[in-house]
């Protein structure tokens, strides 16, 4: 609740800064996100222990809160060098929502997964969530890119034109988390395979989500290839990255909520 409130306060500060309230307000917004993250981290490490888990995944709400934490971690720690203030406007309310969602159903029953404390399982879960968080940040940057692109095409020199970074900088903000995400997702797939062997005696469980995840990683790999190796740039590449994120979204929420098997979010099979 405290973390959620801090993220929400950060959002209002970001909004005020965006509307021209000045540098001080902008600094405070970032400070609030950071404090929110610290509070979030404290609860994140203290809550699951009471449920006999290392990572809180016992309910959809808990998963949301964990995802929020991963998102804040990737933004504040992994992408510290490429942080942009404009992200705050999108990220702060999202974090607030995710943490708020976490409050609703945090205390559901324990998971029925066979070996929740297996290190492979913990690593698989951690890397997968960080990968999704990275893709979410890349997605946020894509949205900002398209807004700035539209502003430049409209030729009016409005607020967004002034406040948002350059197209070049935004492209970097799309690419960097994307590269992180692909690396983490590939790692998550590899570790997941090892965990399946140790938990179920087979490397391949043939889960729809596993297949979809491989597809998502492949899609992003192609995008990275086009951007980095083939030097493909611009709006078309950004739109492709948005399409890639819809697969991430479907994979994370769609298949997890509706699907069957180990990756089902509630209780599990």
């Amino acid at each position: 609740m405290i973390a959620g409130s801090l993220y929400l306060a950060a959002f209002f500060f970001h909004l005020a800064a965006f509307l021209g309230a000045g540098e001080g307000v902008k600094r405070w917004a970032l400070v609030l996100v950071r404090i929110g993250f610290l509070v979030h981290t404290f609860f994140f490490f203290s809550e699951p222990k009471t449920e006999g888990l290392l990572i809180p995944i016992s309910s959809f709400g808990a998963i949301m809160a964990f995802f929020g934490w991963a998102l804040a971690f990737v933004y504040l720690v992994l992408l510290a060098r490429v942080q942009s203030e404009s992200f705050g406007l999108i990220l702060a309310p999202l974090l607030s929502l995710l943490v708020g969602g976490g409050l609703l159903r945090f205390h559901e029953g324990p998971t029925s997964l066979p070996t929740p404390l297996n290190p492979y399982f913990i690593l698989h879960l951690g890397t997968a969530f960080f990968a999704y968080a990275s893709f979410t940040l890349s997605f946020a940057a894509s949205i900002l890119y398209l807004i700035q692109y539209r502003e430049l095409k409209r030729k009016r020199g409005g607020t967004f034109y002034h406040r948002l970074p350059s197209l070049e900088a935004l492209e970097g903000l799309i690419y960097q988390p994307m590269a992180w995400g692909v690396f983490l997702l590939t790692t998550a797939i590899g570790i997941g395979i090892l965990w399946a062997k140790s938990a179920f005696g087979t490397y391949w469980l043939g889960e729809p989500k596993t297949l979809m995840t491989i597809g998502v990683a492949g899609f992003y790999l192609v995008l990275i290839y086009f951007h980095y190796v083939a030097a493909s740039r611009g709006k078309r590449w950004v739109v492709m990255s948005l399409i890639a994120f819809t697969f991430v979204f479907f994979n994370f929420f769609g298949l997890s909520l509706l699907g069957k098997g180990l990756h089902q979010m509630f209780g599990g099979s």
Partner: protein
Amino acid sequence: MIQFLVYGLNHKNCPVEVRETLHFREKRLPEAFEWIRREWPSVETLILSTCNRVELYFSMETGELSSETIVRFLAAFHGIDRSQFEPLAYRLEGRGAIEHLFRVAAGLDSMVVGENEILGQLREAFRAAQEANTVDSFLYRWAQRALQAGKLIRTKTKINEGAVSVPSVAVELAEKIFGRLAGEKIMVLGTGEMSELTLKNLRQAGAEALYVMSRSEERGRSLAETFGAHWVSKEEWEKFLEEIDILIASTAAPHPIVTLDTVRRAMERRRRRPLFLIDIAVPRNIESEINSLDDVHLYNIDDLQEVAQANLRLRRKEIRQAEAYIQQAVDEFQAWVEGLEAGPTIQLLETYLDQLVEEEIQRLAPRTEEERERLTEFGRRLRSKFLRAPLETLKESSHLGSVRRTLEALHSLFQLRPAPPESLDEIRISDRDAGQ
């Protein structure tokens, strides 16, 4: 009484033809300061002479400086007839003068609101006056506070945000597309003055001139040489389109020479790398439909001017906030000045009370040391309580700008003798030391 005075002419009411006749060239500044030191030895002076204004700032502790004297100096120094500028000049005194310098430093009195150049020009004028030894404590503090306020306003508000001239808008847009410019390649079609200026601005920002196309080979080669670029003929420029990032078009061609098909083909070869096209020619050199192509950003002269106007509107929105900072800075400065003026009177009043208390203690003739100490303590308390109300009134009137009247009242009520002449000098020296 400390006086502050501004006499000058600026872009608002004085045409450039007149301003340029009154302009103090850097070479002649020492001569002007020499004249001022000789003619007005007790007056502190600063000369701010830019393309938009010629202003003389004065402060003095005693005496008067009439407009007539200043006009005669300007006419004699520049060798012009006073009737040419006298009706256009303005004279500001007191708070009006103080506020004017703060507004000038903030860029609120500039032709382009919030422009940064004036702050540098004022700093330079201040430095020149310091070197010529024509500024002492009052003008020193006045200019210093104005420079500080100008800097603060630019940091705290967005008064200087956004480019407001065509070449600088082109740079701003290029930076919004390519980020900080670092070797982005430019091609120029035509050798007009505006294209040269835009190219110059883009190069200063970090872009690199690569090709210059001109129908006149001689002119084209000359411009290319100036900017370290290559001249290309009008038959071959198209094939270089895939290499460059920014194209400036300003030829005298009566129809568009950069067509949709040309750019579309180039974009395929460029793998969608963004292309920024600047069309500052009239009639236009680039087909407007090109802007519909993905990753191509076409701005003609009207578009650039519209962005400049939008930026200017944004700056104007900040004026109210900037004015508030100026009022605060002026209040603080005036409080300092009035504090200086009040200092000697307070000192006199304190001395007067000390004498009264001492006389009364003597009259009571205390017998023991203990009794004397008690009476001294009583006198000290009485003095402190008595002074509280006048000091608070002085403080209040200093904020209201009416300190002089209060001081006069105190002098008259208590029949205080005039302030010793050296007291202000002492304050002045200590203040100067604190400033350094």
